[in-house]
């Protein structure tokens, strides 16, 4: 098998979508075939990497053969692989859904040319965005992370503006500017870090990170930059219009994947690189911002009239849970800092993408997505409504879903650490989530007296099955949580890996 330090396969999650993006831009026909092949290949490579990591433990790949202080190194460990798995699974579902979406759009001759152009430009941008995401989850070098963040920002903004409507153009223009400011603040943080440590590699930074003033300023700058990109509450104003006005497959990508990439970096910086200089008060500050996000997002979601805006605001709210995990991660049983975050991120990615796909289906079928007039969609699109129900249930965090496991860990951690207010925040958040999910469900099921229930509108399977499968994955994530925890266990703890794996070289 492969020697563990020159692992050849680590590079493929980046190279596959990159080559696919280039080919999709080059050829006009057959772009869906290339994109699907890249998505499936990416999924299998990530599964193979997970298998390889379980056998060999966390691995590093030095690009160009140069070791860290000089070259760039990619490393895979538990959390990175789970984020890659999340991106691969959601990406495959989005690729299929986008195919169905554009086929449906092109079928009506009125604006076929415009939708054909949108489809043509969707595939290269989506593949290169996937390259940026995989590159970010794999990379272990702060300047390389800046380049991948830029890659994601530059490919996400035109994707969001693909629909061409004035509202989506304004929203994605503001999104581009905000992520530019975020990247520049991040870069200033990198400059401060390079000035005080002289090294760019994350592993070397970890043991160099003393408690100098320069390093804590670098951490503050990095955090502000990444918070801007993760749309935490005070800086969240750009997210709802950008995600709601985009095309359905694009808003899935933005909400489920792009927002998580910058959060993943934030969490890794706080709990791995700068762990020694993190003070409990700063953790609590992030926790309060998270709590603010939960309540503000939920209240706004309840007030929205349009389905897509409601789902976008629920993204803002669910991101709050990721930040509430900051103060409680220390007290999780078994010391697994990453377990809560991984479960929330995986469940939210699947459930949120299912919800946005459902919103897209409703928009395709009814021509609008005003919640008030969603009369009788249950009878015309049963599978879509079923998928919405399951996604809503797992978003709320009811038992079998992964969010339940995460909320259970959060609650037990808050009780263990006698910080009961976090428990109140979590329970309240779930209650509010229940309210805005069921508000829409009720409109789905109400059939006005006058009309008879519409017959079943047969949307193409590509449109209906991906949301259902994703919703079911998010629902039954809780049942496979022991294996997920086993993967998370394999963080840089090589020793632990060997104990479980019987002492491999």
């Amino acid at each position, binding site marked *: 098998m492969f020697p563990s330090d*020159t692992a*050849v396969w680590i*590079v493929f999650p980046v*190279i596959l979508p*990159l*080559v696919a*993006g*280039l080919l999709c*831009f*080059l050829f*006009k026909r057959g772009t869906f075939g290339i994109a699907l092949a890249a998505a499936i290949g990416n999924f299998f490579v990530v599964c193979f990497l997970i298998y390889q990591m379980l056998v060999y433990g966390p691995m590093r*790949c*030095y*690009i*160009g*053969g*140069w070791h860290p*202080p*000089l*070259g*760039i190194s990619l490393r895979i460990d538990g959390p990175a692989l789970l984020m890659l798995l999340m991106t691969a699974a959601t990406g495959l579902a989005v690729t299929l859904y986008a195919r169905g979406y554009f086929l449906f759009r092109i079928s009506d001759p009125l604006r076929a*040319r415009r939708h*054909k*152009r*949108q489809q*043509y*430009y969707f595939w*290269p*941008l989506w593949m*290169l965005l996937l*390259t*940026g995401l995989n*590159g970010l989850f794999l990379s272990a070098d702060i*300047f*390389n992370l800046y*380049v*991948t963040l*830029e*890659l994601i920002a*530059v*490919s996400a*903004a*035109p994707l969001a*503006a*693909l629909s061409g409507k004035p509202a989506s153009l304004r929203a994605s223009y503001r999104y581009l500017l905000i992520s530019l400011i975020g990247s520049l603040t991040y870069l200033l943080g990198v400059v*401060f870090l390079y*000035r*005080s*440590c*002289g*090294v*760019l590699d994350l592993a070397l930074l970890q043991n160099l990170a003393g408690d*100098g*003033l*320069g390093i804590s*300023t670098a951490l503050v700058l990095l955090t502000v930059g990444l918070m801007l990109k993760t749309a935490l509450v005070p800086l969240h104003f750009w997210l709802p219009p950008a995600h709601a006005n985009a095309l359905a497959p694009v808003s899935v990508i933005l909400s489920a994947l792009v927002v998580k990439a910058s959060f993943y970096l934030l969490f890794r910086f706080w709990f791995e690189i700068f762990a020694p200089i993190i003070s409990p008060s700063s953790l609590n500050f992030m926790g309060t911002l998270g709590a603010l996000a939960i309540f503000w997002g939920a209240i706004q979601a309840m007030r929205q009239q349009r389905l897509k805006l409601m789902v976008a605001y629920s993204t803002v709210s669910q991101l709050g849970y990721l930040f509430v995990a900051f103060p409680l991660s220390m007290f999780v049983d078994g010391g697994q800092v990453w377990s809560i975050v991984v479960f929330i991120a995986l469940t939210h990615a699947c459930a949120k993408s299912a919800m946005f796909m459902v919103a897209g289906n409703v928009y395709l079928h009814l021509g609008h997505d005003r919640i008030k007039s969603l009369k009788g969609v249950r009878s015309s699109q049963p599978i879509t409504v079923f998928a919405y129900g399951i996604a809503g249930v797992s978003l709320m965090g009811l038992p079998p879903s992964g969010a339940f496991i995460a909320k259970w860990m959060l609650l037990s951690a808050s009780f263990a650490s006698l910080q009961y207010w976090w428990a109140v925040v979590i329970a309240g958040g779930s209650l509010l989530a229940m309210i805005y999910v069921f508000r829409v469900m009720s409109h789905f099921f109400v059939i006005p007296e006058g009309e008879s229930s519409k017959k079943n509108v047969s949307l193409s399977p590509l449109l209906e099955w991906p949301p259902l499968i994703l919703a079911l994955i998010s629902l039954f994530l809780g049942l496979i949580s022991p294996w997920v925890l086993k993967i998370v266990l394999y963080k840089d703890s090589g020793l632990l890996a060997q104990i479980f794996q019987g002492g491999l070289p």
Partner: protein
Amino acid sequence: MKKKWNNHIRGRNPFQLLFLFLLFMLTVILAVIFCNIPEKSSVLEAGIVSMQNQSGVNSPVTAVLLNFRGYDTLLEVMVLLIAVIGVWSLTKATSFGNTADISPVQLGVVHLLTPVMCLVAAYLVWQGSHLAGGAFQGGAILGAAGVLLLVSEIPWTHAVPALVLRIGLVFGPLIFTGIALYCLWARGGLLDYPTGSAGWLILLIETTCALSIGLTLALLFAGGRPDENGSEGDIQ
């Protein structure tokens, strides 16, 4: 007419003044912190000098750009390509005025200058291996030549078919990725140049990337996708 150029600079409402003051304090704090970070002798620099000869290129910056941190440059060339794809997905190209009112002097200068700029670009790319220069500087000069051609409305610049443009755009990154994969196959590591052939491989990458970057920058200036009124069949 009253002197108008700076009347709105004095922050009219107090919030602007408050924000200016806060920002000024933040900058001062950052400056104070930055200045008394202890002088850290960069451990990197020692490493590079010793590895210099193995990188096949003796200008340190090009060695870092294309050999030690070649992965960064690969992703960065992709950022340039995405910018063009994004611009093409948003708008159509605009014409910079009709060919009637382009003065013959400008046409003369352009016909004289473009070959010289291409020569300078080639020299910069060649010089990149041992002095200051490289793919991006050469590409920038080529881009400037493209801008000159576009501005002076040279007729053939609008008649270039979209497929040729797309091939030109994708050519550089594709060759770069191809060479990276070749190294992966040959030496088992991405961008791990086989010993001895690092020099000319880097030169090959630099020339192809310079061409693509030049075309990319010219198309970014054109500001939109070429209008496809010719071939109705395929997608605009």
